């Protein structure tokens, strides 16, 4: 495709371009690039560059712009908020391959780009599980961990008999391989801003449609036949492999830095179905656990002020 995909705007570029505002949202002040083993990642920063840094990691199929309401509140609390579009997401390069270990390596590359010393890290959903493993792997570089509904548990896995599981897996594997065979030239379906927002709304049913429309010019691009989400079309929701959700949770008790775990208590499709009784036995000594009633998986978008206050209490 010959379409030139424009970068999402910074704060000043958004003002110049007249990006439709959303109450409380503020685009990042700066944009830069980081090389991760030959792959170019786009890094975003909110706040004064001289302030102490905090690293934010977004969830799967999101992008750093989904922190546009949370990050400014933390930045205004005296922090330089650094986030990045994960490989294949937002404005970062589409990779040949995607894996958990590669995402972890990308996170380390961004963390190293901030400078020497340990910094607090905050992750939502997949980004939360990623930051949990980063904190376990690089304890010398992580001063605090804040996990926003990113603690996988085995609850959402279907409890089916072995012979049924075999047949299900066989079908899933065939579909995934078929998808790989078809993905060489695959591009995402075009639509209007409203149509893209509606599609995203299927995964984010609790979120304000106006917010979802705000995200389109940030996480999408416009060409002659309409708007498309930038996320790599070869990526697919779900998946399979040897990984078990409990492996992620088992890293939590090992952490020595202060930890804050927040769960949205209104369970959603995009969440893990993790309950307090799954988390509490695994909390390390320096951990605080906060269940938020009446809030879903995207707690930082539903209640940015509440989540920002909890983050600032923990890292300040």
């Amino acid at each position, binding site marked *: 495709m010959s379409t030139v995909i424009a970068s999402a705007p910074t704060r000043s570029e958004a003002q110049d371009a007249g990006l439709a505002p959303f109450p409380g949202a503020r685009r990042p002040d700066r944009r830069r690039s980081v090389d*991760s*083993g*030959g*792959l170019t990642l786009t890094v975003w920063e909110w706040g004064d560059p001289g302030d102490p840094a905090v690293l934010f990691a977004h969830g799967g199929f999101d992008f750093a712009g989904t922190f546009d309401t949370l990050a400014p509140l933390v930045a205004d609390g005296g922090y330089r908020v650094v986030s990045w579009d994960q*490989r294949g997401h937002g404005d970062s*390069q*589409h*990779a*040949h*391959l*995607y*894996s958990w*270990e*590669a995402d*972890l*390596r*990308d996170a*380390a*590359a961004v963390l*190293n*780009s*901030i*400078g*020497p010393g340990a910094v607090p890290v905050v992750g939502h959903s997949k980004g939360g599980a990623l930051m949990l*493993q*980063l904190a*376990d*792997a*690089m304890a010398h570089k992580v001063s605090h961990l804040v996990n926003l509904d990113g603690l996988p548990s085995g609850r959402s896995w279907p409890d089916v008999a072995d012979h049924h*599981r*075999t047949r299900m*897996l*066989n079908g899933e*594997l*065939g579909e*995934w*391989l078929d998808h*790989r*065979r078809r*993905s*060489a030239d695959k591009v995402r379906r075009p639509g209007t801003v409203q149509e893209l927002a509606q599609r995203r709304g299927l995964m984010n049913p609790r979120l304000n449609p106006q917010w979802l429309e705000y995200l389109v010019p940030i996480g999408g691009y416009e060409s002659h036949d309409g708007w498309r989400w930038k996320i790599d079309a*070869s990526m697919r929701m779900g998946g*399979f*492999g*040897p*990984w*078990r959700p409990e*492996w992620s949770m*088992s*890293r939590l008790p090992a952490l020595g830095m202060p930890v804050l775990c927040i769960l949205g208590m209104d369970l959603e499709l995009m969440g893990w179905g993790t309950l307090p009784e799954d988390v509490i036995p695994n909390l390390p000594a320096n951990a605080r656990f906060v269940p938020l009633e009446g809030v879903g998986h995207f707690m930082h978008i539903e209640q940015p002020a509440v989540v920002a206050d909890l983050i600032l209490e923990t890292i300040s």
Partner: protein
Amino acid sequence: MNTTKMLTHVRCELALHQLRDADGLPLLLLHGLGERTPAEVPSIFEEWRGPIWGLDFTGHGASSRTPGGGYTAEILMADVDVALAELGKVAIVGRGLGGYIGLLIAGARPELVSGLVICDGPGLAGGGPTPHSPAVISPPSTSPAALPSVLPSTTSGPENPDPFALVELATDVRPDDYATTYARQAVQFSGLEAPITIAAVVRPSWLAAVAAEPGVVTKTLSQGLERYWQP
């Protein structure tokens, strides 16, 4: 004379080498970790009367390298599936890593894999059956803030495997029950009484578990080839 077809797997270019042209069921050779398809038919396969092909996995041999790595066994399984789209039904012999990948594709495309022989070779064990202490594998960096590199040292050049592939495919977790799930699918859906033959002497945990499954037999490579030959 060998010929090579270049196949596309999403953004990767895969080299599929024809080592021998003949009639009958094709034999597909899957190399071990860090290896590549041999230039000629190894003598042990001379008794196979059909065509013989070899696939260079992504990051190996004449196949493409990937910026930033991200190698997984499942991606390599999909490499093989792209080759199956070209070749149709095959029998597979896999060395080391190629044996594990052969198991995955035999379970995922049982209708297209008419027999698998798993042999000793580099990368047979992988990273073991359970998660290890996490480590971040970083490429060399000039930044003073960066961690020291732990990637394997290789000289640059297209003939060398991608260092990311060497590390990531040597440390991937291979739970016993994950491996046996694929073995059961191969047994249930392949139509063969014993679709998997283990010729490997070394038995890492995943392979020992597979060996204990019904429909999996222990034979020599020659015996395995004889079992799966179809004119």
